[in-house]
């Protein structure tokens, strides 16, 4: 490839970057940052608007204007990128946490050597565009195979120097980690109410609205008041905030004695071995679901045994559901036979009796 062919592909490339930058800045509502932040407050917004207009005009001129105007647009773009590189270095020194603002709200990463190097590369490309005399649309229409390959390589270099791509990819294809993601309480409640765990324990709960809601990283916890076997209880549900089939756990605790009567999904046994953790920091499911749905007679027998046992010991008992568990998932949506209690204490009673 001759140098003339190489510089021919610069106008469309530079114009593409200018257009992308102008569009990203135009839709940004956060005020950007970068070199504009060096100006007094009152001038920052007008300067942002002026930058968008300048970049758009230069891009259009590089694409469509004939030689004298296209050449001037190329030199102007080279000047813009050179000044940007210098100002970014100043911003980096003045405020190390400030983003470069090059692509509006996507440029959240603090100004680094990559942003400065990108501006320098673009300044060099703009010099090439000036020497080519603009005419970017014509050049793009008549690209040879070699020119397309070199253009793609140049774009790859610019992409490698663009931390904004990562942010754009996260926004388009993925989401933030569940620990930091804001999730409305209403959505958590809806997920809870769709779960089998909620349906199985609905009879214990008074009312439909939680009396307390709190958050613990990837989990939202909701406390409801209720009654079980005539005694006031707290029914607490934990809903995971990730995945389409979030795990749901529940615990029923005596409101007066504060003894945990039953736990669905996990049992937090005092002094027990630490629970295995996921990468998100939450305890992993251990398949410790209190079994429910036994035959009528078995459930009744278990209840009787539990009642007798409780009377013998003179007080409520903490079930050790892990020991009495069956191999079953703890996903609230999938735990078809999961339930702490059906209001008569059968589930918890079974767990108690099976343990001791």
């Amino acid at each position, binding site marked *: 490839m001759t140098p003339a062919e190489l510089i021919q592909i610069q106008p469309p490339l530079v114009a593409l970057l200018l257009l992308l930058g102008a569009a990203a800045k135009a839709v940004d509502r956060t*005020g950007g*940052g970068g070199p504009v*932040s060096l100006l007094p*407050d009152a001038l920052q917004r007008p300067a942002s608007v002026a930058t968008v207009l300048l970049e758009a005009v230069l891009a259009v001129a590089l694409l469509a204007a004939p030689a004298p105007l296209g050449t001037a647009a190329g030199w102007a773009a080279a000047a813009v990128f050179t000044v940007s590189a210098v100002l970014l270095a100043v911003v980096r020194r*003045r*405020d190390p*946490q*400030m*983003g470069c603002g090059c692509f509006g*709200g996507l440029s*959240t*990463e*603090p100004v680094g050597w990559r942003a400065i190097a990108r501006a320098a590369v673009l300044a060099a490309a703009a010099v090439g565009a000036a020497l080519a005399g603009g005419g970017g649309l014509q050049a793009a229409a008549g690209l040879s195979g070699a020119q397309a390959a070199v253009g793609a390589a140049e774009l790859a270099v610019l992409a490698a120097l663009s*931390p904004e791509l*990562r*942010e754009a990819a*996260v*926004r388009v294809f*993925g989401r*933030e*980690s569940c*620990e*930091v*993601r*804001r*999730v*409305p*309480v209403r959505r*958590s409640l809806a997920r809870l109410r769709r779960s089998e765990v909620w349906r199985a324990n609905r009879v214990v709960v008074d009312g439909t609205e939680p009396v*307390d*809601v*709190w*958050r*613990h*990283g*990837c*989990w*939202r*916890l909701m*406390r409801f008041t209720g009654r079980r076997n005539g005694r006031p209880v*707290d029914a*607490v549900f*934990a809903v995971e905030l990730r995945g389409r089939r979030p795990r749901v*756990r*529940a*615990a029923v*605790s005596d409101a007066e004695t504060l003894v945990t009567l039953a*736990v669905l*999904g*996990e049992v*937090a046994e*005092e002094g*027990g071995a*630490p*629970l295995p953790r996921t*990468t*998100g*920091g*939450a*305890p992993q499911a251990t398949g410790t679901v209190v079994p429910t749905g036994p035959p009528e007679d078995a459930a009744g027998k278990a209840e009787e045994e539990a009642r007798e046992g409780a009377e013998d010991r003179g007080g409520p008992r903490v079930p050790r559901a892990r020991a009495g568990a069956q191999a079953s998932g703890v996903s609230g949506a999938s735990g078809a036979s999961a339930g702490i209690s059906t209001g008569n204490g059968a589930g918890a009673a079974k767990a108690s009796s099976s343990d001791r």
Partner: protein
Amino acid sequence: MSVDVQERRRFTAALLGEDAAPPPSDPSPQVVRGVVLHVTAHMLTVATLKGEERFLFERTTSFWRGRDVGPQDVRVGDDVLVRCGGGGRWVVDRLWAQLGRVTGTIVSADGDTVVVDPGHGRPRAVAVIPYRSSGRMAVRHPVLEPGYLFDAVGVREGGAVHTTVPVTTQPPHPASRAPRRPPARRVPEALSGIVTWYDPAYGRAAHTDPRAHAAGAAYPALDPGSDCGPDCDRSDPCLPLPLLSLGATVTVRNDDTGVSAVFPVLNCASAASRFCDRCREGSGDASGRLAELTLPAFTALGGRPEAGCFAATMEAG
């Protein structure tokens, strides 16, 4: 924001495991806060929550009241924070008198007086910049205009804090123009940053107000869906802090001293969410505020209140 934080911790531990919500550490017996009843060159009597307590001074005991002073500068009625030495609760290692701090966004500035908004849930604070410290303050806080951040330690006098030391270098832009945090696909279990202190009792009635003695933390990433509420004015911190609620417990380790403890989250640290600074003193180059500890908690981990911060590692749960 009145919630039963102990109940929340108990239920969290029951459902997510004890590791997710460990019980808070016992308060350090070597850190005492109260009001001076009597002071001599060798002995100090302080009214604390436990009643009257007496402490002895050694030759190595140091005193702070805006600067290093002697025992004669400690006055009856002063709100004092005492760190004892020698593993007991008798001999004073260092004493701070009338400690105050103003952290937040400047609301107005008139001459040497700056009114600062510390964020929702806390009253506005007044900082007076005396001539003696104006040079130091101007270097670190060059713009005393509404909207800019302010953080300084000083001596509490007559409802205002007379600043002596700027804790941080003021960002060169208003708080509203702070850069956004890049998206976090993964959040590490342990986060590095800095920890600062705050005084939930505002220096008042330190001998009777349990808030003055509480060992806890204010957290800059309270869940907006529950505790932070409709008045929530915190911003997203520059660190990817997991969203928590009041009652959660966090393990904080002072990277300089290696001392760690578990503290309950007691308040929202709205102001801390706006800072993305490093600690001027000590090791560590991580920036961003992890939490604000109460004065006794901060001092128990080996922090120097007059420095305002220390490099720390924090783990939720």
